[in-house]
């Protein structure tokens, strides 16, 4: 479904990402781990056509993503607060995003009702603007907006950080459900090895822009990763 060929990104001769070949199948749950500066966010930004590749390309279903709009209809993503419109209330933001994907008001209400558990009574129906919300609730707003379009591909950068423990568990449950019922392709990065191995069936380790491990998740995966990152 997603194919990466010869992809590299350089900033002034400084190589931040270099992936000769990588394919992510439809319905796969793809976990990305690595230390700070390993190139996780860069890789996601390249897939989302937010930065220009120095060489190579990313294609979805055989169509390159660069300078195209078609893929936006079925890719849901949340990387950072740059995806949030901070002067809207969460409800207004959901309405805005929902309308972009042709959702009716009824669809949007049904969606926020479904997410009520994850929101824990704080996000939807609140009169506060997004910029006045806590970091955790901002994250919930962004993740929910990414899910709102019933994405075939879901891309989340560090979705678990800033969430409280209950919300982390709820999010994991939500993501696993999506895989089972919708067969959603997921790309999730995290610093927390536990979370990744629980949600993803495949884990890729990035270091200094290169893929150094590509593991199908099994009972030993967590141990293998821990020993890799041990200092």
């Amino acid at each position: 479904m997603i194919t990466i060929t010869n992809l590299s990104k350089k900033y002034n001769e400084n190589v931040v990402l270099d992936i000769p070949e990588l394919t992510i199948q439809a319905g796969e749950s793809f976990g990305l781990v690595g230390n700070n500066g390993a190139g996780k966010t860069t890789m996601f930004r390249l897939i989302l056509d937010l930065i220009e590749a120095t060489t190579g390309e990313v294609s979805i279903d055989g169509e390159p993503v660069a300078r195209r709009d078609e893929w936006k209809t079925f890719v849901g993503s949340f990387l950072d607060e740059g995806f949030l419109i901070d002067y809207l209330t969460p409800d207004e933001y959901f309405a805005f995003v929902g309308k972009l994907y042709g959702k009716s008001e009824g669809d949007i209400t049904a969606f926020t009702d479904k997410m009520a558990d994850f929101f824990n009574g704080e996000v939807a129906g609140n009169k506060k603007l997004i910029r006045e919300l806590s970091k955790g609730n901002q994250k919930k707003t962004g993740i929910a907006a990414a899910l709102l379009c019933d994405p075939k591909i879901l891309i989340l950068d560090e979705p678990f950080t800033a969430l409280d423990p209950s919300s982390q568990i709820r999010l994991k449950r939500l993501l696993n459900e999506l895989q089972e019922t919708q067969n959603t392709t997921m790309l999730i990065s995290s610093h927390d090895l536990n979370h990744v191995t629980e949600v993803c069936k495949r884990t890729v380790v990035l270091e200094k822009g290169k893929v150094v491990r590509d593991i199908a998740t099994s009972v030993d995966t967590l141990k293998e990763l821990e020993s890799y990152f041990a200092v």
Partner: protein
Amino acid sequence: MLITDLLKQEFRKGFRSQAFYRGLAVKILMGFLALYFAVLFVLMGIVLGEILNEVHDTLKPLELFNGASLYVLLSVLALRFMMQSLNVLNLQTYQSLPIKRKTLVNFMLIKPIFSPANYMSLLVIVPFALKSVVVWHSGWVALQFVLNWVLLIWVNIWLASYLKRRFGHDFKLLIVILAVILGIAALEYFKVFSLFDISMSVFNFLTMMPFGWLATLVFAGLAYGLNLLFFSKNYYPEKFNEKLNRNENKVVGGLSFLEKYGTIGELIQLQIRLIFRHKRTKTLVYLSAFFMLYGLLFYTSEMYTNSAIWLVFCGLIITGMLSITYGQWVISWESNYFDAILTKNIPSKEYIKANFYILIAFNILSFLLTMPYFFFGTKIIYLHIAMFLYNTGVNMFLLVYTAAFNTKRVDLMAKSAFNYQGTTYKSFLIVLPIMFFPMLLAGVLGIFTTYNIIMLVFGLLGLVGVLLILQQMKLCTNHFNKRKYAMAEGFREKE
């Protein structure tokens, strides 16, 4: 004393902020602009006495000035009510420290007194006092006149901050105030009631009686006390800033009809919310509306109406100020969430179209609002129609096309009275083709042909642009697609 410490910290905050050292070119340009206005004000102060002397046979300049004072002060109060930013943020930092609340409250109220921007009017007042009041009256009256004015500035600052905290940024209240001022002016005009006479007797007393300034001091004390009373009733910041943070859902609520127009309608609605929920954009809109009144000055002066070049300049400003000033930062306004624009289901074509439509809507709005100028004759009618077409057909394209060169993040939450954060030399460069090229064209054409033909040329140029609007949008979309990576990268960089 603690208050002086707090003031010192405020100054440090200003000088140590990173923004202070960045964008030197812009600083210098703004500096020249400030200097220009300062010189203009001083000159005005020098000639004011002579002008006022010619206006009326029996009343002395100072008496006339005193008569107008209440009008001036009320207008300035309205202006302050709109523009003056209140000191709210840093209070939270200090509140947890062992500083008496009373000190903090006093500090908040006294701080604006030390801001030089509040004393701009003295640039007119002091020369007027030295040149005219001294001659017509005495040195003592002149001194008392200036002293009074300073105290009146204080009264104004404190009244505005009280009203603002008490009533919030209420759009309706502002309209009520403006209506009251206009209403009084109308009553004055029809000689039903004269605020002028009241103002004159009050201010004559304050300036000419010995120790009249003590009465003004009492006024200032009362205004200050009003604020203290407010703070004693509303103890916590969240309480006394409550009204300031209220959303303006009502203004935006009436725009739901836009939802019918799909993605473009949504994007336009979003930008309208952006405008009404940020101080900076609101100020820009108010100021542009104010520029529409410039016609009263320009179109009544022969110096301007006899020159096609100046008329083109005025016409562009009056019919296009709103779209040009907003358009200078078009796309950049949305730099905070530009990544969302790029990844959500918003085709670039639709995004560019939406921006075009907003600017064109501003043009149409300005054109309609300035229609009363049609009473100034056919010359002005031709001018406005030609400039409206030219702005819509040519200038909007230039704005959207060049917008893609702006890579500086515009932080809408940055607080300052004259906020020009996100301004680069590029913002000034764009003004050249938009304002000066038409003036140049008018000048060159003026050598060969008549006024009406010049207007026809502008009208036709605009019309051709309007007919080619789809091609213009396509060109802008392609350009945007090429530039979007550089823009996104620049917009991610916070100051």
